[in-house]
């Protein structure tokens, strides 16, 4: 069954969501220079942007006529963007990580945009089997967790450099290095579990579906990503890897992950 193509009204609302998030980021930057009055408008714009994206997901789901998730590029990427955005807003409410929205909300915007673009241009449907669903949940869920780890890794490096040089970045200080390292490690732990699950399910899906051919590049990239995060997870055993090295690895892993996700769109995987 061909995937449901997102309609122009849906894409318009999605674009509006992206704009709202973008303006929210700008207000966040200005707020960090001491203008606390921008706090409420900034939060409202974030909530508005995410709410609009959720509306689009629901609308798309209703049009499809069934509720099975992860059926196409559109609902997958937009849903991932929403999950990442909502998770970050929850984290900022519970135990804020100063500056996190500057790094994560652009990723959310990117996911929404990619969803809109690939939703119209790359129409291959994800086969709705148990293996495929678990595979996609694992791989994409891992990608979201790694996105967070990549963001906090980048923040760690910037903050670390600033502290060493005893200079000030424009805007607010980020969360402490200890907190950033902790969030990175937690995100990598979660993402690694999901990626392992997703990779195994993908392998089982391949075994069960004789029509499916997996491009070797995808296997290699997934393997490299898995190894990178396995190294990060072993920092308690090899503590010389903590700090900057962990941050750099988490950024490298995230970039590879994104490259894999995007490359998959352009590489056919069937006979």
């Amino acid at each position: 069954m061909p995937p449901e193509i997102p309609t122009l009204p849906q894409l318009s609302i999605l674009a509006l969501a992206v704009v709202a998030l973008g303006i929210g980021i700008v207000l966040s930057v200005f707020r960090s220079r001491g203008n606390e009055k921008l706090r409420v408008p900034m939060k409202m714009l974030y909530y508005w942007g995410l709410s609009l994206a959720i509306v689009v997901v629901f609308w798309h789901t209703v049009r499809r006529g069934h509720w099975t998730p992860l059926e196409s590029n559109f609902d997958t990427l937009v849903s991932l963007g929403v999950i990442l955005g909502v998770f970050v807003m929850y984290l900022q409410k519970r135990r804020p990580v100063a500056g996190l929205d500057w790094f994560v909300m652009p990723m959310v915007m990117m996911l929404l945009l990619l969803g809109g673009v690939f939703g119209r241009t790359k129409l291959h449907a994800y086969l709705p089997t148990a293996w495929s669903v678990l595979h996609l949940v694992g791989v994409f869920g891992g990608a979201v967790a790694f996105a967070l780890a990549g963001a906090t890794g980048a923040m760690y490096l910037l903050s670390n450099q600033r502290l060493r040089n005893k200079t000030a970045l424009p805007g607010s200080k980020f969360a402490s290095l200890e907190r950033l390292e902790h969030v990175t490690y937690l995100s990598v732990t979660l993402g690694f579990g999901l990626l392992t699950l997703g990779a195994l399910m993908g392998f089982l899906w391949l075994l069960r579906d004789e029509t499916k051919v997996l491009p070797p590049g995808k296997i290699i990239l997934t393997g490299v990503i898995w190894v990178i995060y396995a190294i990060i997870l072993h920092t308690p055993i090899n503590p010389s890897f903590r700090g900057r090295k962990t941050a750099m690895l988490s950024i490298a892993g995230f970039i590879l992950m994104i490259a894999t996700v995007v490359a998959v769109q352009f590489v056919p995987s069937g006979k």
Partner: protein
Amino acid sequence: MQRLLLLGLNHTTAPLDVREKLAFDASSQKHALESMRGQFPQCEFVILSTCNRVEFYAAREVHGSPRTDELLNAVALLQDVPAEVVKPHLYEKTDREAVTHLFHVASSLDSMVLGETQILGQVRDAYDAAAALGSTGVMLNPLFQRAIAVGKQVLRDTALGEGRLSIASVAVDYVRQIFDHFKDKTVLSVGAGEMAQLVLQHFAELKPGRLLVANRTKSRAEALAQQFGGAAVDFDRLADHVAAADIVITSTGASEPIITRSLMETALKARRFKPIVMLDIALPRDVEALDHRG
């Protein structure tokens, strides 16, 4: 008629290793003032020596001594430093410029931390030390008294003093950007003097898990530790205590580093590369210059 001469270097003109060569402690400052008064008996002198600056204020006859080079040579001889090492980093001001500079310094406008309140006390201490030796007179007495009054006024009447900044508060702020929580952290103070007390006052507010004080004189360490609910530890086992500490503050008057590179490397390995923050607020430095790690 008299002329005012200022010769000095600070954190913007000289690196730390040059500043520490020229720095004076209380006893060497007294000796230097006595020596310079002996060499130039008709002149007035004040020496201002802090961790970020060393400045010599001299009042002399218009065509008298010391001239700049003479003053520099006298200081270099006292501190056993080649004059050519120090000369490129010096600034020289006379008369009105020197007065303006001193007023800026006393008002913390020339400080590394703008608005820090310690410098005013340091200017006062420098003046008091010189006045007690009879090293000040008709020019430097009113000058320094006025500078201190101006510094007080600036900190009182402007927003500059609102943050009540000090090196200690900036150090705590810095550490807060590294560590998220402090209940499981150990703070070690090496040194039990006035600076250590000031810094521990701020660090105690973080409520660290353990607060340790190490000092060559155990009784002083015990007194300071008791003040902040901490514990005095053996100075001879410094390596062990550094390995156990997450934050180490050093403020001794030692002329050579007491925390050497090899001690740090041993401590880092013992800590399994857990982060450690070293805050060295002494001049000369207590911590040997290290490569950054991690």
